[in-house]
Protein backbone atom coordinates (compact mmCIF):
# COMPACT_ATOMS: atom_id res chain seq x y z
CA UNK A 1 0.00 0.00 0.00
CA UNK A 2 2.90 2.30 0.70
CA UNK A 3 3.96 1.81 -2.89
CA UNK A 4 0.48 2.81 -4.04
CA UNK A 5 0.73 5.86 -1.84
CA UNK A 6 3.99 6.87 -3.42
CA UNK A 7 2.50 6.63 -6.87
CA UNK A 8 2.80 3.01 -7.97
CA UNK A 9 -0.89 2.65 -8.71
CA UNK A 10 -0.58 -0.73 -10.35
CA UNK A 11 0.14 -2.20 -6.96
CA UNK A 12 -3.45 -1.55 -6.09
CA UNK A 13 -4.41 -4.41 -8.41
CA UNK A 14 -2.56 -6.80 -6.15
CA UNK A 15 -4.48 -5.52 -3.16
CA UNK A 16 -7.70 -5.78 -5.07
CA UNK A 17 -6.97 -9.37 -6.04
CA UNK A 18 -6.27 -10.20 -2.45
CA UNK A 19 -9.25 -8.56 -0.77
CA UNK A 20 -11.79 -7.72 -3.45
CA UNK A 21 -13.73 -10.95 -3.49
CA UNK A 22 -13.89 -11.12 0.27
CA UNK A 23 -15.29 -7.60 0.40
CA UNK A 24 -17.81 -8.46 -2.28
CA UNK A 25 -19.06 -11.37 -0.18
CA UNK A 26 -19.30 -9.11 2.82
CA UNK A 27 -21.49 -6.60 1.01
CA UNK A 28 -23.53 -9.23 -0.76
CA UNK A 29 -24.62 -10.67 2.55
CA UNK A 30 -26.00 -7.30 3.52
CA UNK A 31 -27.55 -6.25 0.28
CA UNK A 32 -28.29 -9.59 -1.45
CA UNK A 33 -27.76 -7.60 -4.63
CA UNK A 34 -24.85 -8.45 -6.92
CA UNK A 35 -24.67 -5.17 -8.81
CA UNK A 36 -24.92 -3.08 -5.68
CA UNK A 37 -22.25 -5.13 -3.98
CA UNK A 38 -19.91 -4.62 -6.91
CA UNK A 39 -20.51 -0.88 -6.68
CA UNK A 40 -19.83 -0.88 -2.98
CA UNK A 41 -16.54 -2.67 -3.45
CA UNK A 42 -15.62 -0.11 -6.06
CA UNK A 43 -16.52 2.64 -3.60
CA UNK A 44 -14.12 1.19 -1.12
CA UNK A 45 -11.24 1.15 -3.56
CA UNK A 46 -12.16 4.60 -4.74
CA UNK A 47 -11.71 5.75 -1.18
CA UNK A 48 -8.47 3.83 -0.91
CA UNK A 49 -7.21 5.85 -3.85
CA UNK A 50 -8.70 9.10 -2.68
CA UNK A 51 -7.32 8.84 0.81
CA UNK A 52 -4.10 7.05 0.04
CA UNK A 53 -2.17 10.03 1.25
CA UNK A 54 -3.59 9.54 4.70
CA UNK A 55 -2.47 5.95 5.06
CA UNK A 56 0.29 6.20 7.57
CA UNK A 57 1.74 2.75 7.19
CA UNK A 58 2.09 2.37 10.94
CA UNK A 59 -0.93 0.10 11.10
CA UNK A 60 -1.96 -2.80 8.90
CA UNK A 61 -3.42 -2.09 5.53
CA UNK A 62 -6.17 -4.62 6.16
CA UNK A 63 -7.43 -2.75 9.21
CA UNK A 64 -7.46 0.50 7.29
CA UNK A 65 -9.20 -1.13 4.36
CA UNK A 66 -11.96 -2.65 6.43
CA UNK A 67 -12.37 0.56 8.31
CA UNK A 68 -13.13 2.20 4.96
CA UNK A 69 -15.35 -0.74 4.06
CA UNK A 70 -17.42 -0.34 7.20
CA UNK A 71 -17.85 3.34 6.46
CA UNK A 72 -18.97 2.60 2.92
CA UNK A 73 -21.53 0.16 4.27
CA UNK A 74 -22.75 2.58 6.91
CA UNK A 75 -23.06 5.35 4.34
CA UNK A 76 -25.00 3.10 2.03
CA UNK A 77 -27.43 2.12 4.77
CA UNK A 78 -27.98 5.76 5.69
CA UNK A 79 -28.69 6.59 2.08
CA UNK A 80 -31.03 3.62 1.73
CA UNK A 81 -32.94 4.63 4.84
CA UNK A 82 -33.32 8.18 3.59
CA UNK A 83 -34.56 6.93 0.25
CA UNK A 84 -37.02 4.75 2.10
CA UNK A 85 -35.73 1.54 0.61
CA UNK A 86 -37.08 -1.38 2.55
CA UNK A 87 -34.81 -3.90 4.12
CA UNK A 88 -37.67 -6.33 4.29
CA UNK A 89 -36.64 -9.79 5.38
CA UNK A 90 -39.25 -11.45 3.20
CA UNK A 91 -37.89 -9.79 0.11
CA UNK A 92 -34.44 -11.00 0.95
CA UNK A 93 -35.65 -14.51 1.46
CA UNK A 94 -36.86 -14.58 -2.09
CA UNK A 95 -33.47 -13.56 -3.35
CA UNK A 96 -31.85 -16.14 -1.16
CA UNK A 97 -33.73 -18.91 -2.86
CA UNK A 98 -31.94 -17.97 -6.07
CA UNK A 99 -28.51 -18.22 -4.52
CA UNK A 100 -26.33 -20.58 -6.43
CA UNK A 101 -24.80 -22.87 -3.91
CA UNK A 102 -22.21 -25.49 -4.88
CA UNK A 103 -24.49 -28.36 -5.74
CA UNK A 104 -24.24 -31.14 -3.21
CA UNK A 105 -26.81 -33.16 -1.30
CA UNK A 106 -30.11 -31.28 -1.11
CA UNK A 107 -30.01 -31.43 2.65
CA UNK A 108 -26.68 -29.70 2.84
CA UNK A 109 -27.97 -27.09 0.44
CA UNK A 110 -30.97 -26.46 2.62
CA UNK A 111 -28.71 -26.32 5.62
CA UNK A 112 -26.59 -23.62 4.06
CA UNK A 113 -29.56 -21.61 2.92
CA UNK A 114 -31.08 -21.77 6.37
CA UNK A 115 -27.79 -20.56 7.77
CA UNK A 116 -27.81 -17.62 5.39
CA UNK A 117 -31.38 -16.82 6.35
CA UNK A 118 -30.51 -17.02 9.99
CA UNK A 119 -27.63 -14.66 9.37
CA UNK A 120 -29.98 -12.21 7.75
CA UNK A 121 -32.16 -12.17 10.81
CA UNK A 122 -29.43 -11.10 13.14
CA UNK A 123 -29.15 -7.50 14.16
CA UNK A 124 -26.97 -5.37 11.91
CA UNK A 125 -24.19 -5.06 14.48
CA UNK A 126 -24.02 -8.77 15.20
CA UNK A 127 -24.12 -9.61 11.53
CA UNK A 128 -21.41 -7.11 10.74
CA UNK A 129 -19.25 -8.43 13.53
CA UNK A 130 -19.57 -12.02 12.39
CA UNK A 131 -18.96 -11.16 8.77
CA UNK A 132 -15.95 -9.07 9.68
CA UNK A 133 -14.51 -11.98 11.57
CA UNK A 134 -14.99 -14.10 8.47
CA UNK A 135 -13.17 -11.64 6.25
CA UNK A 136 -9.82 -12.58 4.92
CA UNK A 137 -6.88 -11.44 6.94
CA UNK A 138 -8.81 -9.96 9.83
CA UNK A 139 -7.90 -10.84 13.38
CA UNK A 140 -9.94 -10.16 16.49
CA UNK A 141 -7.28 -7.71 17.48
CA UNK A 142 -8.02 -5.75 14.30
CA UNK A 143 -11.75 -5.80 14.93
CA UNK A 144 -11.10 -4.53 18.44
CA UNK A 145 -9.16 -1.63 17.00
CA UNK A 146 -11.96 -0.81 14.59
CA UNK A 147 -14.59 -0.90 17.31
CA UNK A 148 -12.41 0.78 19.87
CA UNK A 149 -12.76 -1.96 22.46
CA UNK A 150 -10.66 -4.77 23.84
CA UNK A 151 -9.87 -7.98 22.04
CA UNK A 152 -11.49 -9.92 24.87
CA UNK A 153 -14.63 -7.89 24.36
CA UNK A 154 -14.67 -8.77 20.67
CA UNK A 155 -14.28 -12.44 21.37
CA UNK A 156 -17.15 -12.45 23.83
CA UNK A 157 -19.37 -10.62 21.37
CA UNK A 158 -18.49 -12.99 18.56
CA UNK A 159 -19.18 -15.95 20.82
CA UNK A 160 -22.60 -14.59 21.67
CA UNK A 161 -23.33 -13.75 18.06
CA UNK A 162 -22.51 -17.29 17.00
CA UNK A 163 -24.89 -18.63 19.57
CA UNK A 164 -27.60 -16.22 18.52
CA UNK A 165 -27.07 -17.39 14.99
CA UNK A 166 -27.47 -20.95 16.09
CA UNK A 167 -30.69 -20.16 17.92
CA UNK A 168 -32.23 -18.45 14.92
CA UNK A 169 -31.12 -21.31 12.73
CA UNK A 170 -32.82 -23.83 14.98
CA UNK A 171 -35.98 -21.75 15.07
CA UNK A 172 -36.05 -21.61 11.30
CA UNK A 173 -35.42 -25.31 11.07
CA UNK A 174 -38.20 -25.99 13.54
CA UNK A 175 -40.58 -23.83 11.54
CA UNK A 176 -39.82 -26.13 8.64
CA UNK A 177 -39.23 -23.34 6.18
CA UNK A 178 -39.69 -24.65 2.69
CA UNK A 179 -36.91 -23.73 0.37
Amino acid at each position, binding site marked *: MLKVKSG*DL*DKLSLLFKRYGKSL*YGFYFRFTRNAELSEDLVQDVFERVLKYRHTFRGDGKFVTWLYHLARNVLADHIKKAKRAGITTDIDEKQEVLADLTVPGEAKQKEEHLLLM*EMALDQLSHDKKELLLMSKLQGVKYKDIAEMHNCTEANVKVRVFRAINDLREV*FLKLQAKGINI
Partner: protein
Amino acid sequence: MNSERYEELILDYLTGNLDEVQQQEFETLVATGAIPAAELEATQAAYQAFHTLPDPEPGPGLDAKFNQLLATEKQKVMPSGPAFSWGDLWQQLNIFLSPAKFAYTLVIFFTGFLVAWLAFSPKQRQQQQDPDVKMLATELSQMKQVLFTTLIDQPLAVDRLQAVNISQEMTNADSRVIDALFNSLNNDPNVNVRLAAVEALKNHTSKPEVRAGLILSISKQDSPMVQIALADLMQALQEKEAVPQLKQLLQDESTNELVKDKIKESINVLI
Protein backbone atom coordinates in the same frame (compact mmCIF):
# COMPACT_ATOMS: atom_id res chain seq x y z
CA MET B 1 -17.42 -12.04 34.63
CA ASN B 2 -16.75 -15.72 34.84
CA SER B 3 -18.98 -16.60 31.95
CA GLU B 4 -17.29 -13.98 29.81
CA ARG B 5 -13.96 -15.55 30.54
CA TYR B 6 -15.32 -18.93 29.49
CA GLU B 7 -16.81 -17.48 26.35
CA GLU B 8 -13.47 -15.98 25.43
CA LEU B 9 -11.74 -19.28 26.02
CA ILE B 10 -14.24 -21.21 23.96
CA LEU B 11 -13.83 -18.84 21.07
CA ASP B 12 -10.07 -19.10 21.27
CA TYR B 13 -10.48 -22.84 21.31
CA LEU B 14 -12.65 -22.70 18.22
CA THR B 15 -10.19 -20.49 16.38
CA GLY B 16 -7.29 -22.64 17.50
CA ASN B 17 -5.67 -19.87 19.47
CA LEU B 18 -5.16 -21.45 22.83
CA ASP B 19 -1.67 -21.53 24.18
CA GLU B 20 -0.55 -24.46 26.33
CA VAL B 21 -1.64 -22.97 29.60
CA GLN B 22 -5.01 -21.98 28.25
CA GLN B 23 -5.39 -25.37 26.64
CA GLN B 24 -4.95 -27.02 30.02
CA GLU B 25 -7.38 -24.66 31.66
CA PHE B 26 -9.88 -25.29 28.93
CA GLU B 27 -9.67 -29.07 29.10
CA THR B 28 -10.15 -28.95 32.84
CA LEU B 29 -13.20 -26.75 32.54
CA VAL B 30 -14.78 -29.10 30.04
CA ALA B 31 -13.89 -32.17 32.06
CA THR B 32 -15.45 -30.75 35.19
CA GLY B 33 -18.53 -29.68 33.36
CA ALA B 34 -17.98 -26.00 34.05
CA ILE B 35 -18.18 -25.69 30.31
CA PRO B 36 -20.99 -28.08 29.36
CA ALA B 37 -19.81 -30.40 26.59
CA ALA B 38 -23.14 -30.38 24.77
CA GLU B 39 -23.18 -26.61 24.57
CA LEU B 40 -19.61 -26.57 23.44
CA GLU B 41 -20.42 -28.96 20.65
CA ALA B 42 -23.40 -26.92 19.58
CA THR B 43 -21.41 -23.70 19.49
CA GLN B 44 -18.64 -25.46 17.64
CA ALA B 45 -21.07 -26.77 15.04
CA ALA B 46 -22.55 -23.33 14.51
CA TYR B 47 -19.10 -21.74 14.33
CA GLN B 48 -17.87 -24.21 11.76
CA ALA B 49 -21.06 -23.98 9.74
CA PHE B 50 -20.77 -20.23 9.67
CA HIS B 51 -17.15 -20.22 8.69
CA THR B 52 -17.61 -22.76 5.95
CA LEU B 53 -20.44 -20.83 4.31
CA PRO B 54 -19.31 -20.46 0.73
CA ASP B 55 -18.41 -16.96 -0.33
CA PRO B 56 -20.79 -15.38 -2.79
CA GLU B 57 -19.26 -15.46 -6.24
CA PRO B 58 -18.90 -12.10 -7.90
CA GLY B 59 -19.63 -11.70 -11.59
CA PRO B 60 -17.23 -10.18 -14.13
CA GLY B 61 -18.52 -6.75 -13.18
CA LEU B 62 -16.40 -6.65 -10.07
CA ASP B 63 -13.07 -6.80 -11.84
CA ALA B 64 -14.29 -4.66 -14.70
CA LYS B 65 -15.35 -1.86 -12.40
CA PHE B 66 -12.08 -1.94 -10.55
CA ASN B 67 -10.01 -1.84 -13.71
CA GLN B 68 -12.03 1.11 -14.90
CA LEU B 69 -11.41 2.87 -11.62
CA LEU B 70 -7.68 2.23 -11.78
CA ALA B 71 -7.43 3.35 -15.38
CA THR B 72 -9.23 6.59 -14.62
CA GLU B 73 -7.01 7.31 -11.66
CA LYS B 74 -3.87 6.58 -13.63
CA GLN B 75 -4.99 8.96 -16.32
CA LYS B 76 -5.38 11.65 -13.72
CA VAL B 77 -1.94 11.10 -12.35
CA MET B 78 -0.05 10.17 -15.50
CA PRO B 79 -1.52 11.94 -18.49
CA SER B 80 -0.31 11.23 -22.01
CA GLY B 81 0.09 14.89 -22.86
CA PRO B 82 2.05 17.61 -21.16
CA ALA B 83 -0.91 18.77 -19.04
CA PHE B 84 -1.65 17.30 -15.59
CA SER B 85 -5.41 17.18 -15.13
CA TRP B 86 -5.93 18.18 -11.52
CA GLY B 87 -3.08 20.57 -11.74
CA ASP B 88 -4.19 22.11 -15.01
CA LEU B 89 -4.62 25.56 -13.54
CA TRP B 90 -1.52 25.18 -11.48
CA GLN B 91 0.49 24.20 -14.50
CA GLN B 92 -0.84 27.10 -16.52
CA LEU B 93 0.31 29.33 -13.72
CA ASN B 94 3.70 27.67 -13.82
CA ILE B 95 4.07 28.28 -17.51
CA PHE B 96 3.01 31.85 -17.01
CA LEU B 97 5.67 32.36 -14.41
CA SER B 98 8.26 30.20 -16.06
CA PRO B 99 11.36 31.96 -17.35
CA ALA B 100 11.14 29.93 -20.54
CA LYS B 101 7.85 31.51 -21.45
CA PHE B 102 9.63 34.25 -23.30
CA ALA B 103 11.42 31.84 -25.58
CA TYR B 104 8.15 30.02 -26.21
CA THR B 105 6.44 33.29 -27.02
CA LEU B 106 9.10 34.00 -29.60
CA VAL B 107 8.32 30.72 -31.33
CA ILE B 108 4.63 31.61 -31.46
CA PHE B 109 5.52 35.07 -32.67
CA PHE B 110 7.69 33.68 -35.39
CA THR B 111 4.98 31.31 -36.52
CA GLY B 112 2.56 34.22 -36.62
CA PHE B 113 5.11 36.18 -38.58
CA LEU B 114 5.42 33.36 -41.04
CA VAL B 115 1.67 33.20 -41.53
CA ALA B 116 1.39 36.97 -41.92
CA TRP B 117 4.25 36.97 -44.39
CA LEU B 118 2.48 34.36 -46.44
CA ALA B 119 -0.79 36.22 -46.32
CA PHE B 120 0.45 39.68 -47.10
CA SER B 121 3.54 39.11 -49.18
CA PRO B 122 4.05 41.14 -52.39
CA LYS B 123 2.74 40.15 -55.82
CA GLN B 124 5.69 38.09 -57.04
CA ARG B 125 4.75 35.26 -54.79
CA GLN B 126 5.69 32.25 -56.82
CA GLN B 127 9.37 33.05 -57.13
CA GLN B 128 10.10 34.85 -53.90
CA GLN B 129 8.02 32.83 -51.46
CA ASP B 130 9.69 29.45 -51.56
CA PRO B 131 13.14 30.47 -50.39
CA ASP B 132 11.59 32.89 -47.87
CA VAL B 133 9.31 30.25 -46.46
CA LYS B 134 12.20 27.86 -46.31
CA MET B 135 14.26 30.43 -44.48
CA LEU B 136 11.50 31.09 -41.98
CA ALA B 137 10.86 27.40 -41.55
CA THR B 138 14.52 26.88 -40.79
CA GLU B 139 14.49 29.73 -38.31
CA LEU B 140 11.41 28.25 -36.67
CA SER B 141 13.12 24.93 -36.38
CA GLN B 142 16.15 26.62 -34.88
CA MET B 143 13.94 28.40 -32.40
CA LYS B 144 12.50 25.08 -31.35
CA GLN B 145 16.00 23.85 -30.83
CA VAL B 146 16.78 26.84 -28.63
CA LEU B 147 13.57 26.32 -26.73
CA PHE B 148 14.41 22.69 -26.21
CA THR B 149 17.85 23.39 -24.84
CA THR B 150 16.48 26.12 -22.59
CA LEU B 151 13.61 24.10 -21.19
CA ILE B 152 15.44 20.83 -20.71
CA ASP B 153 17.50 22.29 -17.92
CA GLN B 154 14.71 24.01 -16.07
CA PRO B 155 14.15 23.19 -12.38
CA LEU B 156 10.43 22.62 -12.93
CA ALA B 157 9.58 19.12 -14.20
CA VAL B 158 6.73 20.60 -16.21
CA ASP B 159 9.19 22.58 -18.31
CA ARG B 160 11.50 19.64 -18.85
CA LEU B 161 8.50 17.62 -19.91
CA GLN B 162 7.61 20.29 -22.45
CA ALA B 163 11.15 20.21 -23.76
CA VAL B 164 10.94 16.50 -24.37
CA ASN B 165 7.61 16.90 -26.12
CA ILE B 166 8.94 19.68 -28.33
CA SER B 167 11.79 17.43 -29.38
CA GLN B 168 9.21 15.12 -30.93
CA GLU B 169 8.16 17.94 -33.24
CA MET B 170 11.66 18.46 -34.51
CA THR B 171 12.14 17.07 -37.96
CA ASN B 172 15.92 16.76 -37.95
CA ALA B 173 17.27 14.37 -35.38
CA ASP B 174 20.14 16.40 -34.03
CA SER B 175 22.63 14.28 -32.13
CA ARG B 176 22.70 16.91 -29.38
CA VAL B 177 18.96 16.52 -28.93
CA ILE B 178 19.25 12.77 -28.80
CA ASP B 179 22.03 13.02 -26.24
CA ALA B 180 19.90 15.36 -24.18
CA LEU B 181 16.97 12.93 -24.40
CA PHE B 182 19.14 10.09 -23.17
CA ASN B 183 20.35 12.31 -20.40
CA SER B 184 16.75 12.89 -19.38
CA LEU B 185 15.93 9.22 -19.67
CA ASN B 186 18.77 8.15 -17.45
CA ASN B 187 19.07 11.02 -15.04
CA ASP B 188 15.94 13.08 -14.75
CA PRO B 189 14.51 12.85 -11.22
CA ASN B 190 10.94 13.07 -12.51
CA VAL B 191 9.44 9.80 -13.73
CA ASN B 192 7.08 11.54 -16.15
CA VAL B 193 9.96 13.23 -17.90
CA ARG B 194 11.79 9.92 -18.18
CA LEU B 195 8.70 8.27 -19.64
CA ALA B 196 8.27 11.09 -22.14
CA ALA B 197 11.91 10.66 -23.09
CA VAL B 198 11.23 7.01 -23.95
CA GLU B 199 8.38 8.18 -26.15
CA ALA B 200 10.50 10.79 -27.84
CA LEU B 201 13.33 8.37 -28.48
CA LYS B 202 10.92 6.02 -30.23
CA ASN B 203 11.13 8.36 -33.20
CA HIS B 204 14.84 7.74 -33.53
CA THR B 205 15.03 4.00 -33.16
CA SER B 206 16.10 3.63 -36.76
CA LYS B 207 19.53 4.68 -35.53
CA PRO B 208 21.54 1.79 -34.09
CA GLU B 209 23.19 3.98 -31.47
CA VAL B 210 19.77 4.99 -30.17
CA ARG B 211 18.73 1.36 -29.83
CA ALA B 212 22.00 0.57 -28.08
CA GLY B 213 21.47 3.48 -25.72
CA LEU B 214 17.96 2.32 -24.91
CA ILE B 215 19.18 -1.18 -24.16
CA LEU B 216 21.82 0.18 -21.80
CA SER B 217 19.19 2.30 -20.14
CA ILE B 218 17.16 -0.72 -19.07
CA SER B 219 19.48 -1.64 -16.24
CA LYS B 220 19.79 1.97 -15.13
CA GLN B 221 16.10 2.39 -14.45
CA ASP B 222 14.47 1.69 -11.13
CA SER B 223 11.03 3.08 -11.79
CA PRO B 224 8.66 0.22 -12.71
CA MET B 225 6.78 2.32 -15.24
CA VAL B 226 9.90 3.20 -17.15
CA GLN B 227 11.12 -0.38 -16.98
CA ILE B 228 7.86 -1.57 -18.46
CA ALA B 229 7.93 1.12 -21.14
CA LEU B 230 11.41 0.07 -22.19
CA ALA B 231 10.55 -3.63 -22.17
CA ASP B 232 7.54 -2.83 -24.31
CA LEU B 233 9.64 -0.86 -26.75
CA MET B 234 12.22 -3.62 -27.06
CA GLN B 235 9.42 -6.05 -27.72
CA ALA B 236 7.94 -3.82 -30.41
CA LEU B 237 11.33 -3.33 -32.03
CA GLN B 238 12.04 -7.05 -31.91
CA GLU B 239 15.35 -6.05 -30.39
CA LYS B 240 16.96 -9.33 -29.40
CA GLU B 241 20.09 -7.59 -28.13
CA ALA B 242 18.00 -6.37 -25.21
CA VAL B 243 17.46 -9.84 -23.81
CA PRO B 244 20.59 -10.00 -21.58
CA GLN B 245 19.71 -6.68 -19.95
CA LEU B 246 16.13 -7.74 -19.48
CA LYS B 247 17.23 -11.01 -17.93
CA GLN B 248 19.42 -9.10 -15.52
CA LEU B 249 16.49 -7.01 -14.44
CA LEU B 250 14.42 -10.14 -14.03
CA GLN B 251 16.99 -11.62 -11.67
CA ASP B 252 17.22 -8.48 -9.62
CA GLU B 253 15.28 -9.05 -6.42
CA SER B 254 14.19 -5.49 -6.01
CA THR B 255 12.34 -5.52 -9.31
CA ASN B 256 8.59 -5.16 -9.02
CA GLU B 257 6.53 -8.31 -9.65
CA LEU B 258 4.38 -6.75 -12.34
CA VAL B 259 7.51 -5.59 -14.15
CA LYS B 260 8.92 -9.09 -13.94
CA ASP B 261 5.77 -10.44 -15.54
CA LYS B 262 6.08 -7.92 -18.34
CA ILE B 263 9.74 -8.74 -18.84
CA LYS B 264 9.02 -12.46 -19.03
CA GLU B 265 6.45 -11.72 -21.70
CA SER B 266 8.88 -9.56 -23.64
CA ILE B 267 11.68 -12.08 -23.42
CA ASN B 268 9.34 -14.78 -24.69
CA VAL B 269 8.43 -12.62 -27.65
CA LEU B 270 12.03 -11.78 -28.42
CA ILE B 271 13.53 -15.22 -28.18
